[in-house]
């Protein structure tokens, strides 16, 4: 089996960098475009994200998630940091738009990562309000306060919906390993 791109980067293989850009460049760019206010900001964000990817390549664990999901995670962390600093004022989608299934995109989701496919299925099982909060926070990048103001919902309730929704999806993805191990030892 070919060594993962990130593993090769972690071992100092410079040739793997070009492959990294070719494989994940479009993904990172698309995520940045979604969460940044303009193209210039998105370009700056992408540069920062790739440096983060190279620095953290040694932390990739293929047993835990795919490279695509790992890269998306690093991208998200950087984009959230930037959003918190700029305090963007975005538009809110209606609940109907949020709950509408991305029905034409299942094939693309499968291509993107297996975890994304599983996450899409798990999201369907969430309560509408949990799904809405997660969509607004994760997909659209709103802060909890912005969501609370927009939905006229107490801040604590927004956080509770997000937490419970994430816990449920996390369980569906089989990612709650540490907690499960702790329960065994309790």
């Amino acid at each position, binding site marked *: 089996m070919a060594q993962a791109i990130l593993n090769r980067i972690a071992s100092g293989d410079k040739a793997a960098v070009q492959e990294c850009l070719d494989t994940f460049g479009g993904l990172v760019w*698309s995520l940045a475009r979604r969460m940044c206010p303009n193209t210039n900001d998105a370009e700056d964000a992408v540069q920062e994200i*790739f440096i983060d990817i190279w620095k953290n390549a040694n932390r990739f664990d293929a047993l835990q998630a795919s490279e695509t*999901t790992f890269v998306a995670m690093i991208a998200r962390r950087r984009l959230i940091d930037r959003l918190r600093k700029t305090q963007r004022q975005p538009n809110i989608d209606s609940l109907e738009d949020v709950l509408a299934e991305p029905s034409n995109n299942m094939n693309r989701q499968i291509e993107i990562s297996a975890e994304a496919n599983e996450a899409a299925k798990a999201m369907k099982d969430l309560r509408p309000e949990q799904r809405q909060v997660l969509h607004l926070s994760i997909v659209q990048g709103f802060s909890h306060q912005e969501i609370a103001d927009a939905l006229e919902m107490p801040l604590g309730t927004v956080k509770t919906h997000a937490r419970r929704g994430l816990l449920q999806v996390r369980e569906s993805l089989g990612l709650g390993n540490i907690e499960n191990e702790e329960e065994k030892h309790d």
Partner: protein
Amino acid sequence: MTEKERQRMLELLADQAAFGLNDEESAELRMYMNQFPEWEDDNSFDLTAAAIGLAHLNATEPLPENLHKRLAIDAEQFFDSTKKARELLSSASKSEETVGGFTPQNVGDEIIAETKSPFWQWLGWAVAAAACIALAVNLSLTRFQKQPEIVQEPKTIQTPTPELTAVQKREQFLASAADKIQTIWTEAKPKGGEISGDVVWSNTKQEGYLRLRGLPANDPNKETYQLWIVDETQNEKTPVSGGVFDVQGNGEIIVPIDAQLKVIKPKLFAITKEKPGGVVVSSPEKIIAIAKI
């Protein structure tokens, strides 16, 4: 780990993945990570959020060509600097001397390989740490020069230190104040959410900053804004003055807090509008904005 601690840890990890954490929450999470290092590498919530984000990614756009070229240059520089750091560490490890209680190789291992800190907090410190390692190694090597230079007439050139801006001072404060607290402003009499921003404060440093947006400009000849700090240990009717300030434009302002007395346990910050120069005692009716701890 108690059940209460575990629940709080899960809350913080979930909040971090969904919304990000403020400084206080980040500090709390770091405290838990220090106490329970088995959780340090837990990426499960972040991976879950990433998977959800990917599930809603309708299409991917190709990376622009100019950006691709810039990234290739970034990669070259990144890998060159990493290689140099490794070489420095490798040459230093041949010496048996230690620097500052650490062997350079061990410290390098901490940076290049796994760390004990959560990786999202390690990110920003890795470059600074590598620079410190390079400096420490350089010092250890130069200590063993057989013919050190003797400077006969050291010349000191004093260069003026540029004054930091309020933004820079605030950032420096945020980076250095371990006990900082933060809260956000709300209008005392809401008129549509014009005033926003935050307050950060450190009891240890007795230093803090207001950051405000939407506060109307004032005529300094007629009035001024004054900050008040309500301390739990003092009478509410006589809060501590945090200084006066004026607002000239419409953008964001950052104001250093100038507490007239020592603040022990702040529970509320308030802004009033007063006569020029401020007052010794104000009244609740003049409160324009408050920020509760």
